[in-house]
């Protein structure tokens, strides 16, 4: 398998407009389509977060225009508590599924995995196209929930039963809105399974001559491990959402217990287990967060090696750590359920692997930091975001150590401490990985350079802004501030409102800073300086081709790989690095 040559081209060059730009079989176009979808989703999610933050600190003030989004949810522009929960649900769902699963994994992975292993395309190009358009259908189904009369569901992105299962008796948005949510996620699972299948088959079977598994770049390894995790995780969420949909429309009782009286009405269900939904959901949900972070770790590692101009302390250990994280991620789901009423002994059983999983994550961090120590890091927007990722991953990750202990979690569960933890690791660190990848690969994808100065400005404003937003969340959680509250009227919460005000200002400021990125992206796409083939002097195979690459990647030729992607700091004819496909041997380390 190690020297299997890539097969002949799967599909001919696209000729029609639809084939070139819409229903493309080209993994590069599909990658860009995923990226565009993620970009739309992230801006929607960000606007939702602004609306939420504004409401939290000025609950009685009208938000101009909101009444046009929902007359019932925001009469006169003043958000009702239920609509706050609706926006919260959509924010979470959009961000976790359509941004964090799409951008680092589906977008960059689709674009660069085949190239980095020397293949002409993914193993199954038609499945690839199907997986993107299925994701798009899922996105449309979700967004449709905004426009049904009752609005989006109020049960959170976690959609706990029985609230999510009983129907419109239990509150606004729980009728058609929740059903649309369920259908959207069901369809998204199918899309993700198709995508993961493609990634795995491509990585195992389409590597070019000389590209052994150990010579694959870090990000390729990360995408491969992520796709293995995603395959098994989404295969569990799929039946879970099916059961939820059946409870809602077919009258079954998988999750709805007997004797529920909601709005003075006895629900005609019995015998179901709400805890079953939590188990099924979190069995998917915990691997999902590693699906969100692992590609970012891989991208950041790849960029860091390039920017340090020397290999990491141990790339092999880093890869083993990623595999260990992937493996352990299936054993920790109960740490989301410490206070759910399940057997307290099981809390011990889940707490142990949760603490164990911090070990490979710490090893990875130490490898990154140890590799940076004593190096002469090239500072670019991409490498700044890579460093920022490490900072955010540490800051957000250490709160996980606390939450892993059931005794502490009893207090901190469902407080802002948890919200701070997952926003820092997912909402910031993973997004920093996406930013880093964007600044790094934009020249290759478009043939234009982004503005480095705007990129650095974007980094500093975002770095400072996100710390200002999310660090105070930990303080709020320790002070007992409950999450998913739309107003802080309890006596013990009133003194925390000034902290919330600060956070809201920081959120609006940081959101505005993202416009710099958007401007940079669009302006550079059309008017950026032309990009050379290898502006970062990087060793991996994507930098051997023109910017942007031709439709068949390597022009019908199959590259032969001679090296791992860590040949930096060596004397060679190209400078201080050797490309993977160069037969030149390293002479003396610099």
């Amino acid at each position, binding site marked *: *398998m190690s020297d299997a040559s890539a097969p002949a081209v799967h599909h001919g060059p696209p000729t029609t407009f639809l084939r070139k730009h819409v229903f493309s079989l080209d993994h590069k176009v599909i990658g860009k389509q995923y990226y565009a979808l993620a970009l739309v989703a992230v801006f929607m999610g960000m606007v939702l977060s602004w609306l939420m933050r504004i409401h939290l600190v000025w609950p009685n003030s009208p938000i101009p225009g909101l009444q046009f989004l929902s007359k019932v949810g925001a009469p006169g522009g003043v958000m009702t508590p239920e609509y706050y929960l609706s926006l919260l649900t959509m924010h979470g769902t959009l961000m976790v599924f359509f941004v964090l699963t799409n951008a680092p994994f589906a977008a960059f992975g689709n674009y660069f995995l085949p190239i980095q292993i020397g293949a002409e395309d993914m193993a199954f190009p038609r499945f690839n196209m199907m997986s993107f358009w299925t994701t798009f259908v899922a996105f449309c189904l979700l967004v449709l929930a905004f426009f049904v009369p009752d609005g989006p569901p109020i049960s959170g992105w976690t959609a706990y039963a029985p609230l999510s299962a009983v129907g419109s008796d239990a509150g606004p948005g729980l009728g058609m809105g929740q059903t649309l949510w369920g259908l959207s996620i069901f369809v998204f699972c199918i899309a993700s399974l198709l995508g993961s299948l493609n990634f795995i088959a491509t990585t*195992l079977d389409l590597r070019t001559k000389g590209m052994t598994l150990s010579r694959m770049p870090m990000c390729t390894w990360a995408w491969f491990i992520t796709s293995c995790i995603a395959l098994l995780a989404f295969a569990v969420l799929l039946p879970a959402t099916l059961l939820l949909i059946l409870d809602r429309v077919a*009258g*079954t009782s998988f999750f709805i217990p007997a004797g529920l009286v909601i709005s003075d009405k006895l629900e005609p269900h019995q015998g179901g287990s709400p805890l079953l939904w939590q188990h099924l959901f979190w069995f998917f949900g915990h691997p999902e967060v590693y699906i969100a972070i692992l590609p970012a770790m891989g991208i950041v590692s790849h960029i860091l090696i390039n920017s340090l101009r020397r290999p990491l302390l141990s790339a092999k250990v880093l890869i083993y750590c990623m595999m260990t994280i992937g493996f352990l991620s299936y054993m920790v789901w109960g740490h989301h359920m410490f206070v759910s009423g399940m057997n307290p002994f099981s809390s011990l059983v889940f707490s142990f692997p949760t603490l164990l999983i911090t070990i490979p994550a710490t090893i990875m961090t130490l490898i990154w930091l140890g590799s940076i120590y004593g190096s002469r890091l090239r500072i670019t927007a991409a490498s700044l975001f890579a460093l920022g990722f490490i900072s955010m991953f540490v800051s957000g990750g250490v709160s996980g150590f606390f939450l892993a202990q059931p005794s502490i979690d009893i207090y901190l569960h469902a407080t802002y401490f948890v919200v701070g933890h997952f926003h820092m690791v997912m909402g910031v660190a993973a997004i920093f990985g996406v930013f880093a990848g964007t600044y790094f690969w934009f020249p290759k994808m478009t043939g234009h350079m982004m503005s480095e100065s705007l990129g650095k400005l974007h980094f500093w404003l975002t770095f400072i802004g996100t710390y200002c937003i999310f660090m105070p969340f930990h303080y709020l959680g320790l002070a007992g501030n409950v999450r998913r509250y739309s107003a802080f009227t309890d006596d013990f919460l009133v003194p925390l409102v000034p902290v919330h005000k600060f956070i809201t200002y920081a959120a609006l400021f940081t959101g505005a800073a993202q416009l710099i990125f958007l401007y940079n992206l669009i302006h550079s796409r059309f008017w950026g300086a032309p990009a050379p083939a290898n502006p970062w002097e990087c060793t991996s195979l994507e930098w051997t081709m023109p910017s942007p690459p031709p439709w068949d990647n390597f022009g019908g030729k199959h590259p032969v790989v001679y090296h791992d992607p860590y040949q930096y700091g060596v004397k060679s004819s190209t400078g201080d690095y050797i490309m993977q496909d160069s037969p030149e041997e390293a002479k003396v380390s610099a």
Partner: protein
Amino acid sequence: MATIIHPPVEPGQQDQLRTGVGSGNGSDNRLPGDGSSRSVEERPSAPVRTGIWVALAAITMMFAALTSALFVREGSANDWHHLPLPPILYLNTVMLLASSATLEAARRRVASYMRSAGVGRDAAMFWLYSTLVLGLMFATGQYIAWRQLRAEGLYLATNPNSSFFYLLTAVHLIHVLGGLGGLLRVIYKLQPNVMTLRRSTMDATSYYWHFMGILWIYLLFVLWLKI
């Protein structure tokens, strides 16, 4: 950068190049270098072979989730009422297992047809159509089983047992219908005016179909034991 450049490979040439290199490397539907059937087996994985195992892993995981949901649901309340399985299920099982046997016969005949350059297509098609017919009979039998349950007043939401019965059999049947689609694709690709079937496609389709049979045995056992 010095890259060793291979001349672009024409799609038709590729298999011949591969068989020229060594013992049956990579030839999906061409005569192997030394003509022996053993070397036809020694081929590197075409992506579809890896892909089908990956897909089967995902399907296994899905049914594992449904099985654990069944066990949890059984234990969560006192409303578990065993229902007698419609006897037609056992007949359906026989038909599904028979279809696996016919598909295996078809697969071998397709392989020998590919080796013999044009002889034996009819036998291959006969066994493929037999598999298709048996598969459709299985699907019909499952539908009859549902009708029988409905006649007894057992619908999807009647009790948790009936819910899981319909759920498990329906999800399995959806996958079987997908397998039937794969079979139709194989049959289409063997039509005289098409003739683009690869060994790997045939193999992947048959692995999937056999898995549906094994999965059904497992589900039948779970249904018999629990439902």
